[in-house]
Structures are given as C-alpha cells and as structure tokens.
C-alpha cells in the first residue's frame, strides 16, 4: 500500500529532499494511558561498567541483558536454557583468539571488508553545506551490512554444533545473507518472511531459494517482519535440539542485541580509522537508518564515548510521523515487551502491537533494538523520521549524484543527511551509513514513480 501523498514521476529538481521535517522530538502519547515514569539510563550506568571503563556508554548490557530498563529475556521457559547456553557460548567465543582470527578471515576474504568510506563530492556540492561521507556497506558480499552479523553468528552456531539455521527477514537482505552462509557451510536453512514482503521483495526470495534455503511465507498479521519474527521463534522452540536462531538485528532476547551489535561494530571501528585518515578528526554527525537498528548500532557504538559526535537514527516515518502509518517506534511508540525484550513499541492503549508501515520492507517493524531505546532516553542519540516520499527522493538523489543506488532503507538516512547538510558549515562532516544497495528495490521504486518495468 502506498501513501496517498506519494508523488509520481521522476524528481529532477535541484534540492529534492528539502521537504519540511514533520517530526519534532516530542512524543505522541495516547491520552488513555497512565503516565508512568521509568527509572533508566545514567543512574544505572555505573553498575554496568566493566571493561569499557568508568562512565563508558559502551559497557552495556548488564548481567540481565538490560540497557537501563530496556532489553532482558522475555521468552517462554522452553527457550530460556537455550539463551543461557548461547550467552555462555558467545562469551567463550569472544574470549577465544581463534574465533576472532576465523571471523577476521571470513570478513576479509568472503565479505570483502573493510568497506570504503567514500567522500560524496557531488552530493555534497549539490546540497551545499557539510561534507558528506558514505560508509559503503552496500559493497559487502550480498549487498548489505547484514553479512557482518551473519558471518559472526554462523561461526558461533558451528562451534555450538548446530546443523540447522532459522531466521526471520523483512527486506530479504538478512535472509539472503543467512542463506548465503548456509550454502557456504552446507547447513540446512529455513527463512521466515512475511507474505507481503515475499511479494515486494521477489528478487531476494528467488535468490534465497537459489542458495538452497526454504523460504516460508508468513500470512499471520500484516505479513511483515514482526510476523516473520513470531514464526521463526515458533520454529526455534519446536526444533531446539539441532536449530540455531540467527537473529538479523539488534533486537530479540539477550544476548542477541549485544551479540549482533558487537558483530556489526566493525562498521564503526573502520569508520573511525578511515575518517581519521581522511580528515584527521572525528565526524560531527553520523546518520543511519533504523529498522531493528543493527546498521545504526554498528556504526554508533564505537562513537558512544565521543560526545562531540552527534548520532542520529532515522526511523521510517511512512506517510508522516502523525499519519498513524509509520514504523517510528521510538518517536511514536512507548515502552513494552515484544520478541523477548523491553523496548519502544508501536502499540495501542491495551498493549496490542500495531502494524508498522514503511515503503521499505527492512524498516517495517513496530519495535527497535533495546539499546537504541536506552540511547534515546538518556539523550546520547537522537531519533528522527524520514517519510516514504523523502526516502524515494533521496534514493534518486544518491543514484543521480553519486552513481550509487542505495537500498530504500539506507535512503531514509540519506534523506535526513540531505535535510541537515545545507544548514551546516562546509567544514562540518557527516557520515551516512549506506547499509545496503538498492537493486532489490527498483521494482518498488518504479511502481511509485509510475514506471512499468
């Protein structure tokens, strides 16, 4: 379904993404809900400080898998022993130099890391303001940042002796990445994907099947990522003896948010080195799109303790933040419990989860990783929205000025960067995370532009 306000036709104007931001930082709360205050953030921080040092924002989660009040392990008892086992196995792997060596080998020679940090000269000139750099995660094998995490988890699953992988996918990028490593290691693979997403991401569905994965369309709910996540959890609980649940974003029960963040942090670690080499200083602003939040967490995390670096997560505002059709969980949701963790969720007054909407399948999720909820509450990162229209415009801007076709997910980040860059001085630096490439999205974009393929 499209928003009623989507313009058809290609955009050729010079500043196509200068639409006014409909978002404020203010949150819309349902009147019938009793205001509750949560203790969170800074006060609890000191208790969780370990290796990252006193006052570090990088030391979470605590022993219970919490970031302030967010996170945790809200799962059925059947899964609880498995999460405890996973936590132990992950710790052991982290402490094992051999695991690190193995992962580095695959990241370099299979994923294709490091990914470049590209100075977007023409886009910078066109927007007329801050220098825009692009972290080129779309150049990874399989075309997105997803493989960073998948590579780490598949090596862990192998260490744990699992032979079958289940995963959820929205845009299909995580599904493709997962199917890819299952092909690489000869493992059985079942990918749960909402029926709506199967429809709008056909190339990825075909790709997964070519790779030997079983793609299971999920018709429950609106047939999007949330429903796929439910179904993947049901599969896992049914096949616990041989199956590893390979979560694709920084959500789910502990230790997934931590583990996925750690594997994705390679993005931020490289960015830091690369920007120091290019500019001799840290960037002023980092912008990334937020679905579940893994590409954003990956680029943010190494900068959490650099307060001079502004971190901006761009949620999908869908038809507009106040349209009732968004995927902006932090800006338009309230804390609740879904898929194993406490986080900001789109929900009604009775605690029923509401359907998200975004033009981008990968952002179409009513929740967000718990660490983002915490970073928002303590004010370390800012969360804003970009609409379907703004993403479409930014998709074209990036393609036209840089010769890079970004994923619609990443186009949300570009849209916001394009919005703020003109108001920043020319010596300021913005890094945008280009989380994926947009080949998978050309059908969706063509449809919205009124072009028949």
């Amino acid at each position: 379904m499209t928003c009623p306000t989507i313009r058809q036709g290609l955009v050729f104007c010079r500043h196509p993404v200068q639409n006014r931001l409909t978002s404020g930082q203010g949150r819309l709360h349902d009147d019938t809900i009793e205001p509750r205050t949560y203790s969170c953030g800074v006060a609890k921080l000191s208790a969780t400080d370990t290796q990252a040092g006193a006052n570090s924002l990088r030391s979470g989660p605590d022993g219970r898998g919490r970031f302030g009040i967010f996170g945790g392990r809200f799962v059925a008892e059947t899964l609880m022993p498995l999460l405890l086992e996973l936590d132990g196995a992950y710790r052991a792997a982290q402490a094992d130099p051999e695991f690190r060596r193995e992962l580095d080998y695959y990241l370099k020679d299979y994923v294709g890391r490091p990914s470049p940090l590209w100075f977007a000269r023409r886009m910078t000139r066109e927007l007329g303001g801050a220098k825009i750099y692009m972290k080129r995660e779309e150049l990874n094998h399989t075309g997105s940042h997803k493989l960073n995490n998948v590579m780490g988890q598949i090596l862990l699953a192998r260490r744990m002796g699992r032979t079958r992988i289940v995963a959820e996918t929205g845009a299909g990028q995580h599904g493709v990445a997962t199917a890819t490593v299952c092909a690489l290691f000869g493992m059985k693979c079942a990918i749960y994907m909402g029926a709506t997403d199967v429809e709008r991401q056909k190339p990825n569905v075909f790709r997964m099947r070519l790779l030997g994965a079983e793609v299971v369309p999920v018709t429950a709910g609106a047939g999007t990522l949330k429903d796929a996540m439910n179904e993947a959890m049901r599969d896992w609980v049914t096949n616990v003896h041989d199956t590893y649940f390979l979560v694709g974003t920084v959500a789910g029960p502990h230790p997934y948010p931590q583990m996925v963040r750690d594997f994705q942090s390679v993005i931020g670690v490289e960015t830091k080195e690369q920007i120091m080499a290019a500019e001799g200083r840290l960037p002023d602003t980092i912008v990334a799109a937020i679905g579940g939040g893994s590409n954003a967490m990956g680029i943010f995390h190494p900068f959490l303790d650099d307060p001079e670096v502004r971190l901006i997560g761009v949620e999908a505002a869908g038809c507009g933040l106040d349209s009732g059709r968004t995927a902006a969980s932090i800006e338009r949701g309230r804390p609740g419990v879904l898929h194993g963790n406490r986080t900001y969720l789109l929900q009604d007054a009775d605690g029923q989860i509401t359907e998200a909407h975004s033009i981008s399948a990968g952002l179409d999720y009513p929740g967000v990783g718990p660490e983002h909820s915490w970073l928002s509450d303590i004010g370390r990162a800012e969360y804003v929205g970009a609409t379907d229209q703004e993403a479409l415009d930014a998709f074209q801007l990036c393609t036209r000025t840089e010769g890079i076709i970004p994923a619609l997910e990443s186009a949300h980040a570009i849209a916001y960067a394009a919005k703020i860059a003109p108001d920043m001085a020319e010596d300021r630096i913005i890094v945008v995370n280009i989380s994926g490439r947009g080949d998978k999205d050309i059908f969706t974009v063509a449809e919205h532009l009124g072009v028949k393929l």
Partner: protein
Amino acid sequence: MSRIARRFATLRQQGRGALIPYVEACDPDFDTSLAILRGMPAAGADLIEVGVPFSDPSADGPTIQKAALRGLKGGSTMKRVLEMVAAFREGDDETPIILMGYTNPIEAYGPERFCADARKAGVDGLIVVDMPPEEADLLAGPAAAAGLDIIRLVAPTTPDDRLPVVFSGASGFVYYVSITGVTGTRTASTDELAHALPRLRRATDLPIAIGFGIRTPELAANAVSVADAAVVASALLNTLEATLDANGQATARTVPAVLEQLRALADAVHAVRK
C-alpha cells in the same frame, strides 16, 4: 487457603486428577466466551484457564493464534477479560480461574493495578508465557500483595540444576509444557511423561499440570495418571472454530459443542483413580 490450593487439596482427598480447560476471552464474542466459561464447571472443569488475547502470541500454534485474533476482533481488552471473570464469579465462588497470556498487555495495564483489579474480579492465578523467572520481578511483588498465584512453566529443556530457579517463587501449581514446541501440535508420549514427572516431583511439592498437545480423553487420562492435572486448550478451540458461521460468528452449536467435548474429557480424567 487460596482457591487453587483448596481445589487441589479436595481432589487429592478424593483421589482424583484435575481437568483444566481453556477458553479464550471474547472468542468469538464476549457473551459466547462467558457462556462457555459459566458452563465449564458443570461440564467437569476443576480449574479454568482464561486466555488473554495478544496480537503476537509467539509461543502458540495456529489454533490459539486464531482464537486470540478472534478474541481481539470480538472486543477483548484486559478490562473486558476482567469483567468476564467478575461475571463468572457472581455464580461460582469455588472454581479457580487462571489468566494465561503475555507480558505486554499486563505491562500496558500497569502491573500493580492489574494484579489488584484481577484479584477483585476473582482471578486466582497468572500464567505469563513470556515471563521466565529471570524477569518475574515485574509481577512478583504486586501478585503477592494481591494474593495471586504465579504459575511457573517448566519445559523438557529445563535442566535439573535450573529447576530450583524455576520453582522459586512458584505457587498454586506447576505447568509442565510437555513438548518442545508451540501449543496444539505434537503430543508427548507416555514414555516421555513417565520420565519427566519424577524429575519434577523431586524438585517441587506443588501439584503438576501437564499441557500442550492433549487433545483426546485418552491422552487426558494418561496425563493425570502421572500428573495432577491435564490442560486442554487447542482441542476445545478447534471444536469452537468448527461451529462458527462463515463470518466467524457463534452459532447455536458453539457453546454446547465445546461443553460436550469438555464433558467427555472430564469423564475420562475423573475415571482415573489416584
């Protein structure tokens, strides 16, 4: 003594096992589910589980998923669920009622207010599927203050050394999820049950109910021959679903069909002498 403890004590005296049927609130509408609930004790229910519909029942199979959706369509909210229990209590002060659901609707209602209101409505115990002992502090205080039992789930995957963790803070009874899987799918074999129960008995003195996959009178009888109670949910919901008209509305068959099936299950359970 709580209603749950009293009921199990009476059953033990009589040398009988318990049947615990399940009804989803507002499935497919408030009045129908209330009529089923009211008819359950006379049809042989010893305790009753009332399902609180949730949009994302990730531990449930297709049958309960559909029931939850029908319940939400039928106007279920936490407030309505509690009204339903209160209406039941007007005519029955003995049969224990256990609410079964997920964390988020409770958190949205506010844990303290929820426990107090549930108690007032006549609820006796809570089963919160996605709240393992590690997260139980959210409800432990308010539930204790309101005198509600927290019924803990234990699974085949729960190792022996974890049993004390699971049973600490448990009260009322213990719910053994007899298979690794979602509701309404596979059935545990007699062997599996015979193996599992002694392991649990060594770790708790609470009565043990077996649930997940019990769909026939024979399976229910089998379950109470080793445990103290059998929970039947999906089988009853399938029956209910089969009586609905093309628009998903209840028909004249709906309430009697569910209660007839319940009676057959109860007869089998109550024939087992312990």
